[in-house]
């Protein structure tokens, strides 16, 4: 009892030493002011270029590179967006959506199938297959890129949806398997066993019992894969030159704007590429942050 009072006493005394001004003025302590100054400075560095480029999507080239690039546009050029759309951004957007929808669906389905089998069934070669997938996380894509091009070409799948989708799935599998494997290991075994005893097949048990139980894991790795595949640039730039996805289209447009000197249109294209992800991010930012960082820490 005496000890407890002592401890409490030391604590309040300590707090007093650090902040002699008392509770009311705590937020104005030097440490706090310094923290906020540094944090605000970095926030400005992050947010200002982003917001500026959104505003630039309504400017003319002259206003973007003129005397005062910080000025508000004299006239809001919404026309930039229709010009960007006509330059192919609409097609790029559609390509991205198709590839990511099927790519993420396939990745999640196949990834969790493999992870489940490896986590829950004992068979010869289990460890080998696990390490085969885990090793895939360490290999630099550029080691494979030249032969990969010819593999895809041999299937006649350069610049096709199916080519990109299959490659996206294959390259997303290592991480998905690794993550979901760890996740399935944490789930209790009793429910799946009960389902099997009641006569459910292994396949039914997986789809009806285990997958619903794995929802939190699927959500994390799903967010990771959606963002990863949506922002993928290296694979499509070599494997799909004729059917560009959005991030690749932006890079191509930058190249052509250097000659055509129509930067408003480029920034409109940029806005079209950024806004969907940013809106989703602002709505679900807790889930996105938890999903991405949680997925990395596993």
């Amino acid at each position, binding site marked *: 009892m005496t000890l407890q009072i002592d401890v409490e006493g030391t604590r309040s005394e300590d707090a007093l030493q650090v902040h002699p001004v008392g509770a009311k003025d705590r937020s104005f302590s030097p440490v706090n002011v310094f923290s906020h100054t540094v944090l605000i400075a970095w926030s400005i560095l992050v947010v200002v270029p982003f917001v500026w480029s959104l505003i630039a999507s309504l400017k003319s080239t002259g206003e973007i590179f003129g005397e005062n690039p910080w000025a508000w546009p004299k006239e809001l050029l919404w026309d930039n967006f229709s010009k960007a759309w006509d330059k192919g951004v609409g097609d790029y957007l559609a390509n991205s959506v198709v590839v990511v929808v099927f790519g993420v669906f396939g990745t999640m389905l196949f990834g969790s199938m493999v992870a489940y089998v490896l986590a829950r069934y004992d068979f010869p070669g289990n460890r080998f297959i696990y390490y085969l997938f885990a090793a895939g996380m360490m290999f630099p894509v*550029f080691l494979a890129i030249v032969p990969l091009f010819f593999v895809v070409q041999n299937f006649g799948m350069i610049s096709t949806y199916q080519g990109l989708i299959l490659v996206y799935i294959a390259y997303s599998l290592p991480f998905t398997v690794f993550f979901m494997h760890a996740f399935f290991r944490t789930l209790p075994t009793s429910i799946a066993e009960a389902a099997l005893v009641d006569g459910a097949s292994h396949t039914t048990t997986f789809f009806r019992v285990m997958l619903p139980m794995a929802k939190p894991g699927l959500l994390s790795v799903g967010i990771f894969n959606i963002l990863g595949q949506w922002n993928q640039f290296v694979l499509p730039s070599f494997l799909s030159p004729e059917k560009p996805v959005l991030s690749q289209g*932006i890079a191509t447009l930058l190249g052509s704007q250097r000659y055509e000197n129509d930067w408003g249109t480029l920034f409109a294209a940029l806005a079209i590429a950024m806004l969907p992800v940013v809106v989703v991010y602002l709505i679900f930012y807790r889930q996105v942050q938890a999903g991405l960082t949680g997925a990395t820490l596993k």
Partner: protein
Amino acid sequence: MRHGSYRFVASFLAIPLALYAIFVISPFAQAFYYSLTNWTGVSPKFEFVGLDNFKTLTHDAVFRKALGNNVILLIGVPLLVILLALIFAYLLNVGGRSNSAGVQGVRGNGFYKLAFFLPQVLSVPVIAVIWSVVMTSTDNGLANTVTRKLGLGTSQFLANPDIALYCVMWVMIWGSVGFYLVLFNAAMSGIPKDIFEAAIIDGASRLSTFFRITIPLLWDTIQTSWVYLAILALDAYALVAVMTAGPGGPDNSTQVMALQIADNGFKFGRAGYASAMGVVLFFLTLIIAAVMLRATRRDRIEY
């Protein structure tokens, strides 16, 4: 194992394993093989040339420049990103109420994390376009108007071969800090409060609790982050390809290995040679991961 489960296992593994074997394992294996040939990538005929490609690589001035640039990025990017992210995470956590022993955040904690993390959801080409315009080399460039106002003068940025690589490095850091801040922040809030309280009772200052408690308990996370950032620095293709003139910058000042692999493999018709570069890149990645995970290993602290 129950009857019929082998068939189930096989049916679940067949398609994903086939995809993985065709599109991932086989190209990787082929790259090792092609690195020993003079394959052009165009004609089906090629010869086995042993280690010739690797010998040529040691004299290849452009490749050596690229390797050197990658090494600069490899040192600078992980170091600065982890340092900045740790500082920001520290400020977010302990800049707030003092008696809460390090886990209560500053006001606006949520806003800062929201803002800092933003670049992580944007694709690299988008970031590259934004920054290449911000760093326009004329006096009216966005960054130049600010530095001139602040009395720092103007800069050519990506057009100046002396600093072009550091401009690329800056964009990499800018894009990564937020992610690692959120990562470290999550790991910090996982540290039990009583550890900090005990330390403060014993008279430890904020700074010493940070160095003596927070950093050691975050060590696993920092180590993993280092490996991820090293892999990022060894790639750098997307930023360099989109941002810099050429691409590769003036005087190859922003040349990186990945760009050389792409150029040799697809433009110059030297697929065998490009594969040899890929093999070098692979071993470099492997060595760095092994060194980082071994050399910096400490006893894991359970709490």
